[in-house]
């Protein structure tokens, strides 16, 4: 892994001795439990049960990940005309008639509707054996895709703002960093007061800023705003941390480069584009990786603020893993979710590595 210029010899004994305490503890307390989780995910192990544990192969994964397609024709009257509702919409047979004990559709047994849309006069439905998990996956990806770039960008903006010689800049720096040192559980409790739908702080602020024109929004109670609200809070909480990482990157850029840019008469944007940003490539990779990993692990905010609701709009993968494993006592199902998450994040980081490597 590392080029070792000091000698070509091996230092097996010293190397092992130095690495052993840290590596050994990690094997014992992270790798071994995770291997257990993989094993659990192939059984029907329950949290609480006198029933014997059985090996079930990939059944838990099938139950979690199966997706299927069903195209429905509209219901016709006896005369062969399409039956229309009072408002002109067509009616379709209930999906459950296909997914429950229907000998013609054995492959759809037990599946539920995930989402569906109209295509010509047909209804196309995507079925999943576990639509809640599917929604959790989608939400988690949404969260990552929104939070990673935004948090990274805001953090960079803050870092540029704070990276100047001004009296008292340290005080501002400290304040921007403050939310990072407060427990996310504490933060979530406080933000419930901010997002409250009736007399929350945010609604009152909007109310007075708009002179009463904005109606109060039930931020966490409305499926359209709940996930966004949690994203905003999460960005707020951690942006200070990434600001500091960007700062470290900024300080590795040599001042002579800036001077050269100045002499050439570069504008602020040009300086950023051609001096600052190229110098931050490595930092950017680090920030992106750390944010992505934190975002995939989204749990505490959900647990304190919404419990996955309203209408599953804030379900996430880790929340589902915990809800299954502990809440519904289904350790094997919860473990399968953990393994799926691991595989997802691993693939993404391998891809990330692949792409960043090619550029070198």
């Amino acid at each position, binding site marked *: 892994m590392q080029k070792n210029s000091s000698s070509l010899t091996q230092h097996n004994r010293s190397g092992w001795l130095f690495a052993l305490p840290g590596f050994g503890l990690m094997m014992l307390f992270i790798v071994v439990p995770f291997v257990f989780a993989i094993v659990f995910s192939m059984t029907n192990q*329950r949290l*609480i049960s*006198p029933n014997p544990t059985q090996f079930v192969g990939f059944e838990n994964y099938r139950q979690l990940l199966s997706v299927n397609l069903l195209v429905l024709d509209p219901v016709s009257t006896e005369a062969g005309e399409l039956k229309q509702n009072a408002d002109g919409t067509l009616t379709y047979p209930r999906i459950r008639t296909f997914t429950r004990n229907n000998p013609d559709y054995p492959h759809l047994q037990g599946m539920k509707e995930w989402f569906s849309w109209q295509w010509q006069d047909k209804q196309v439905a995507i079925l999943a054996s576990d639509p809640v998990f599917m929604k959790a996956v989608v939400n988690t990806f949404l969260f990552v895709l929104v939070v990673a770039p935004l948090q990274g960008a805001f953090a960079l903006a803050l870092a540029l703002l704070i990276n100047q010689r001004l009296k008292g800049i340290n005080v501002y720096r400290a304040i921007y960093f403050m939310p990072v040192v407060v427990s996310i559980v504490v933060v979530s409790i406080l933000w419930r007061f901010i997002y409250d739908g009736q007399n929350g702080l945010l609604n009152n602020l909007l109310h007075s800023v708009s002179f009463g024109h904005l109606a109060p929004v039930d931020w966490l109670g409305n499926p359209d705003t709940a996930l966004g609200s949690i994203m905003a809070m999460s960005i707020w909480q951690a942006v200070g941390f990434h600001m500091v990482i960007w700062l470290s990157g900024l300080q590795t850029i040599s001042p002579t480069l800036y001077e050269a840019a100045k002499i050439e008469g570069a504008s602020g944007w040009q300086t950023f584009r051609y001096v600052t940003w190229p110098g931050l490539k490595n930092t950017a990779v680090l920030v992106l990786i750390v944010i992505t990993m934190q975002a995939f692990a989204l749990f505490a905010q959900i647990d304190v603020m919404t419990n996955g609701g309203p209408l599953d709009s804030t379900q996430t993968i880790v929340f589902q893993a915990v809800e299954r494993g502990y809440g519904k006592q289904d350790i094997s199902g919860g473990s399968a979710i953990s393994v799926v998450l691991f595989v997802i994040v691993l693939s993404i980081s391998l891809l990330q590595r692949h792409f960043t490597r090619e550029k070198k």
Partner: protein
Amino acid sequence: MKTKIMKNVLLASTIPLLSMGSINGFAATELSLWYHGAGNPVEAKIIDQIVADFNASQSNWKVALQSFPQESYNDSVIAAALAGNLPDILDVDGPVMPNWAWAGYLQPLNINSAAIEDFLPGTKGYWDGQLYSLGLWDAAVAMITRKSTLMEANIRIPTLAQPWTLTEFNAALATLKQTGKYDYPFDPGLAWKGEWFPYAFSPFLQSFGGDIIDRESYQTAEGVLNGDEAIAFGEWWQMLFQKGYSPGNSQDSADRETGLVEGKYAIQWNGNWTALNMLKAFGDDVLFLPAPDFGHGPKIGAASWQFGVSASTSYPQGAADFIQFATQDRYMTAFSDAIGLIPPTKTAAAASEHYRQGAPMATFFELSAQQAVLRPVTPGYVVAAKVFEKALADIADGADVVDTLDNAADEINQDIRRNLGYGH
């Protein structure tokens, strides 16, 4: 310099690290007792008293109390059970008991059934034909409102014998909404997540004629949780939120606590444990009313926290002795007087401040005796309750009623199958 500090820190920290264990040397056998009341000083005082009295009353056993915060109590017990670390005596929420008994955490409670004959049914935990747990109180839920509220709106004050009907109740809500005086006419309490949902709302479903699980076989929810009666219930439930009669899932828990007193809500579905506050706030004007009759009689949930004996204890007799000692009238009365819980026996009720004949909360005792229905007595209840909670939350948020109930029934059935029928 730096290393010196580090060494000192290390030393200082290893001392408590090593000095654990070794609390022995009592003549009496120690029995450990787990209780869910941490953070509640009033409850703690009474339970401490019971333990002290018991320890003084005999010399064989010495009970040692360990309190847990209620929010994480079940998680703590399950973790301890997995790790083989259960105490001798533990308290358990009534509907969860079958789950723990089936899993082998609890053993039958050796108390003569004659001795507890006159206990309210909700305080006795039976599973598989045997007594496993016994409570020092029951809880009951009522429609809490003010006489003046109903009189002004010209709404009939219902009685135990003649509760509101569905039509009457809906009409009352419409009337109260029209007055424009209240944010919401009816507060069912969606701010309280978790067990409150099945405890407080499944009786509505039962009064409509549905249920969470079919109680004949305990093997399916099909037809009871998604039958016509259940769909009628679901549509009614959704209507409460769509018409703006009730605050939804995002209700502020502070509003839940103060909304009725502040006049934001006209009627509140709430437990007897809040009755003391309401009495204080409204005095004579307060009303504790029975649940409406939605077609199959008025129903409320039964069973609260109870004591049981862990399966792993070597001293089941000592544990049972303690539970029997604790369920004396005077302690049950003490709990009732201090926090407004319902005493399990007529004699304890007669001696209590709030439940004696003619006392303001006596209604609750009658409610509990006449209308209380246990939540499904099955180990599968724990999962079914979660499914039920999510279904009701989703319906309140506007999800399709039929689909939601169908999916809930499917999920419960799947869980029952995966658990090989839960031992029924």
